């Protein structure tokens, strides 16, 4: 089974928010006032990080963990992990108990007041299953820092890029997301 992961190299993120807006376009009809947002981009700093003044953008989105705390926390099995690695939250099954929201170490699960259920990024599995990239990863990013596909391949690509960028960046806090993969 091919693995499907979403990896964002935050070092290369400019905070352009194209991914966040592309995600909204995928899930929200233009007229609907009540919008869901699965992904958000927020500034971190400028502040001291590892003793150096730095400023990074952070992309908050479900990391589709290998051992998702949300699945363990859910009492009604509304969250499942697919064979390809995508963690899916079924809003129909969700009872709105919010235990998953508390359990998620990344604050990546939100609560939909209207539907009274939790919600999170399901990695556009409706697109992936049809041979399409997730909306945020479909070549929208101005920094080319959003990767989708096999996690081992992605990490190779990121390492190659870092090498090309040159050694001077080695001492720099990279800010790259590393999935809690075992």
């Amino acid at each position, binding site marked *: 089974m*091919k693995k499907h992961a979403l990896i964002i190299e935050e*070092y*290369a*993120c*400019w*905070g*352009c*928010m*194209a991914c*966040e*807006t*592309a995600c*909204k*376009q995928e899930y*929200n009809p*233009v*007229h609907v*006032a009540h*919008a869901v*947002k699965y992904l958000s981009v927020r500034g971190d*700093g*400028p*502040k*001291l990080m590892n003793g150096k*003044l*730095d*400023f*990074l*953008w952070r992309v908050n989105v479900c990391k589709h963990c290998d051992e998702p705390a949300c699945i363990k926390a859910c009492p009604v099995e509304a969250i499942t992990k697919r064979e*390809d690695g995508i963690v899916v939250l079924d809003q129909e099954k969700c009872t709105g108990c919010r235990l998953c929201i508390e359990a998620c170490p990344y604050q990546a699960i939100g609560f939909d007041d209207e539907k009274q259920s939790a919600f999170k990024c399901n990695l556009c599995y409706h*697109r*992936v*299953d*049809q*041979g*399409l*990239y997730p909306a945020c990863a*479909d*070549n*929208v*990013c*101005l*920094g*080319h820092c959003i990767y*989708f*596909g096999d996690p081992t391949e992605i990490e190779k690509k990121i390492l190659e*890029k870092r090498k*090309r*960028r*040159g050694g*001077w*960046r080695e001492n*720099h806090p990279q800010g790259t997301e590393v999935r809690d993969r075992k």
Partner: protein
Amino acid sequence: MAEVTFSNAAREMEVYGYDSVVKSHCRMCHGGCGVLVYVKDGKAVKIAGDPDCPINHGTLCSKGFGSLQLAYHPDRLTHPVKRVGPKASGKWERISWDEALDCIAERILAYKEKFGSESVVFGYGTGRENEAVIYRIANILGSPNVLTAGHFCYGPRICTGIITCGTNPIVDYENFPKCIMVWGNNVTISNADEYKGEPFSVALDKGAKLIVVDPRLTRPAARANVWLQLRPGTDAALALGMLHVIVNEELYDKEFVEKYTFGWEPFVKRVNEYPLDRVEEITWVPREKIREAARLFATTKPAAIQWGVAIEQQINCADNDRLLMFLMGLTGNIDAPGGQVLNRTPNIVNVGHFGAHGMLPKEQVAKRLGGDRFRLASRFAIIQPKCVWDAILEGKPYPVKMLFFISSNPVITRANAKEVYRALEKVEFMAVADFFLTPTAELADIVLPAATWLEMDYIGDFWKRHGYIVPRRKVIQVGECRSDHEMLNDLAHRIGQGQYWWDNFEQALDSILKPMGITWNEFKELNYVRGEVKYYKYKEGGFSTPTRKFELYSTILEKMGYDPLPQHREPPESPVSTPGLYTEYPYILITGARSPGFFHTENMQVRWLRELHGEPIVEIHPDAAAKEGIKEGDWVIIESRRGKVRQRAKLALGRDSRIVAAQHAWWFPENRDPGHGWDESNINILTDNALEGCDPAMGASNIRTLLCRIYPEKKEGGRP
């Protein structure tokens, strides 16, 4: 399971059952990115970047993704209206296009008859690819007064580019610069002009070295090899300091200097007036850092400067632009692959010709407002806004009776907003074309519903200097909205200009394309057309300047009576120029840092984009905040000699504690009062527009750096 593929338009069509996909050209900024517009049941339903477009390579910014919500916004004006109550009463009545255009035409002809064509001022805001058509109608009418952002945005790069080296030099990302110096720009956020964040990112991923000149720690500054954290408004001194290093360490391209420059000796003399100890004192940048940046930039080939508008909205506007061009030129990067290229546009009618500048009679040119004062601007048909406000408010040198603003919101975007508002309240007749009833439109007599880019056919990037033109194809019709081009073509017939215009605007597009030997219908089948690509063109024909050389010493500025060599001028308000004022207003206010989603005053009502930034933010150093009793998230009053506004405090390191950075362009469409909160957080309430504080050649208003005080709105802090 299906193989997953990037930008797969064919699969999108199958999976979502779209009826069609139209290739077009976005214009959520100045224009520039190729897009795919998916259509279902006659409605545009999805926007994506066009992977075949050489400008954005399939990527798209947040503004582009917000296009549909803009086009189908419930508040959009979809038919012409006339005001039936007092100005800013919000009382409007629907009228027909015929009634609206006849009324505007009648006024234009009446004012022309009684007060002269110069009493009718046309205007546009930031470039929306309507410039040439607006100049055309004004020039044929005989009005020398077209009020644009050109005095302090992009116009200066064009004007100084033409007088220095023939055109505006554009970064050649296609050939991957190995060193990029970002100067007063946040290109991955703004994505404007010829520049998109995407090719810049790719060049960095290829290993380009990065120098960033910015008073704030932006993300590019955080990634830079060298960050030059200058005192706001001292760009000219910093550039002169870098040139001092390059000249005295002989890091310049000797062949270029010898064969292709004019004025080397006086230039060197001027540069030597700026030794690094003096430059350090002026700019607050340590001399070692200036030397390091100058050496890195001069010795890494090819190198390029990614410049932005921040250097132009200053008293040193024209000299800043010229000095940066000198850095490009003397290091041998002008017209070099991977450097800064003087592109050729495809063989079409150029904007100047289409704009009918040659048809404006000489005696009318002489009447251009402020033309004798801002002579470089005037030569390029650019005027200073305050000259128009003065003409309305005081009738000097002659009265301006009518304004016609197309895609412009000067109440929010021009310096000294209170004066702008007074002028717009007073002017006898004002027409506006826009998407929404903005604070400016609320002062108009007639407002025309303008089309978004999704609703028009046009030759995209017609006016740009990157060498491409891209078809913008009409996808949808919203209400009775018309493109600026179509409405002006129609109006022109009603004011007796019919012989110079067309039966419909498609014929105008045909005429623009005619030299290339194709029609609009043929052009729209193409992805894009690119001008001839050729490097080092000056080695054959020289530069297109009076001396045929790269003019370090400007013969044109000299003739106009200006200093032919660039210099540093202190900002009109600064700790150095006004130390007394600095004790009362002890912070340097910088304005206008860009946010994704917005383009100046635009998109404040587009929910997907407004959600990215709900409120105006003022960035304050934690030490300054502690001193003033300001906490994170407090509403803060920012006050200058001209007035005060409120913005929400964000405490941030990465700047000198004497600097406060406020956002610009804020108004609140959700505020249903006809003022829409125009004076609540609008930073131009604080900025000055006195002519003495403007760039002497371009008339650029100095809105980027002034003095202010800050304090919490509520003495106890906290949210109201």
